[in-house]
């Protein structure tokens, strides 16, 4: 970013907003927004406490499991849909329905089906992430140059070879961007699951702090969550950049 001809350092917009936040907090405009410095003080206090670490590990575990299933099921299903017209026509309506469905409204149903424990939370997380991963993998396969597939066939590729050595790699740029968006949705999914199903993890912390009007605590947890989501998203974006050298030349 440039301002009046001067090159501003990276993330300078964050600095500006942080400063504004601090000012609004210091003049005590609203209890909803405590000063940023106060939030960081609170954060440093709670981050080493047992309840926080427990919440972090509960949320981390549910998030990891949920996204694991979303990726391991979503990518192969998406590739199969892109490859096979029949499977595509069978599944595409459902994928589109669930992509736009208000999944939060489905959570009570999941609770009846799968109980009040980790299982339901993981399934909620998976359901938030998987549809966009499927759709992106499918789109990646749809744009494969057909002569690459013919080439593999002509050299005697078995279906599994073609799957692993052609389809997966050729669709990888799209798959990665689907995974990135899916993971961000999974952050939402895991918190909603922990709020609605059983009050555990970060969901429980949000519930506790907001009901007690502990706004600086609330914002501290939100900042941690944002930092985690941002790190994951940036990591996946860097993987995307690593395959971009062939994304435009397939």
């Amino acid at each position, binding site marked *: 970013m440039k301002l009046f001809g001067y090159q501003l350092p990276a993330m300078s917009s964050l600095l500006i907003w942080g400063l504004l936040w601090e000012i609004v907090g210091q003049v005590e405009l609203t209890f909803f927004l405590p000063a940023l410095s106060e939030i960081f003080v609170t954060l440093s206090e709670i981050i080493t406490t047992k309840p926080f670490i427990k919440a972090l590990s509960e949320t981390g575990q549910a998030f990891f499991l949920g996204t694991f299933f979303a990726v391991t099921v979503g990518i192969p299903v998406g590739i199969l849909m892109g490859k096979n017209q029949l499977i595509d026509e069978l599944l595409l309506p459902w994928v589109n329905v669930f992509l736009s469905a208000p999944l939060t409204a489905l959570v009570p149903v999941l609770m009846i089906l799968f109980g009040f424990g980790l299982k339901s939370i993981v399934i909620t997380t998976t359901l938030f992430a998987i549809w966009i991963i499927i759709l992106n993998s499918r789109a990646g396969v749809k744009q494969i140059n057909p*002569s690459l597939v*013919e*080439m593999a066939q002509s050299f*005697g590729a078995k279906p599994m070879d073609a799957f692993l050595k052609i389809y997966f790699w050729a669709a990888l740029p799209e798959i990665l961007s689907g995974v990135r968006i899916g993971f961000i949705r999974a952050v939402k999914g895991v918190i909603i699951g922990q709020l609605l199903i059983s009050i555990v993890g970060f969901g429980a912390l949000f519930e506790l702090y907001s009901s007690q009007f502990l706004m600086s605590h609330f914002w501290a947890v939100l900042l941690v969550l944002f930092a985690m989501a941002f790190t994951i998203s940036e990591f996946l974006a860097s993987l995307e950049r690593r395959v971009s050298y062939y994304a435009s030349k397939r």
Partner: protein
Amino acid sequence: MNDKTTSVNAVEVRNVYKNYNEVEALQDLSLDFPKGELTSLLGPSGCGKTTLLKIIAGLIPTTSGEVKINGKKVTGPGPDRAFVFQDFALLPWETVIKNVSFGLELRGVAKSEREAIAEKYIVDVGLAGFEHKFPHQLSGGMRQRVGLARALSVDAEVLLMDEPFSAVDEQTRRKFQEDLLNLVKNENKTFLFVTHSIEEAVYLSDQIALLLPRPSRVSEIIRPSGFRHKDVDSIRRDSEYLDIVDRIWDSLRTYVE
């Protein structure tokens, strides 16, 4: 007598029909491809020459009729054939050496062995030093050399080339054609070559099969004989070469809109 023909012909196409729904792409097509020679399939667009090549490759099934490679019926792709693609069909995420050894990789050859073989053919096609480059770092002509090296490295008896030089520039194409003539001379392989360029077909071929559309059939088989042994530089000035080019153009001109 049947024994004799199978020993001379690497590829035999017998009464092949191919229909796409209502459209007849090939109608009762029969053609022989003598061993160790280069045969061109030449014709206007829409005459089914690429379809025929892909049927021989085993990539497309026939509607009826059969194709034999060394007397053995084709039921799908096989290690006796290798394909060179018009658009090169390289894996853009792999380096040159990985691309060249890809056919061997699919055949289960160990990594060190297949890369040694690939290395040899990379040198043969003139790409030494480019082993670890990616396809997008190469020119069109160099990319097709990668495609050619990949087809050569699996050591198939029959090389199927689908307009391999049509996507490279004129000067590169000429160089390619000279290299291909040397390849035909030195490698004991059978080459099937699809082209829409009359000059290219006459320059390269031991046998030219002229295909005409509506319905697709072999209208004529031409075997240039006088200049085949000549030096690559003097072929284009040979009077037989020029006569054949003229004769083919006479047959084709009515099909060109």
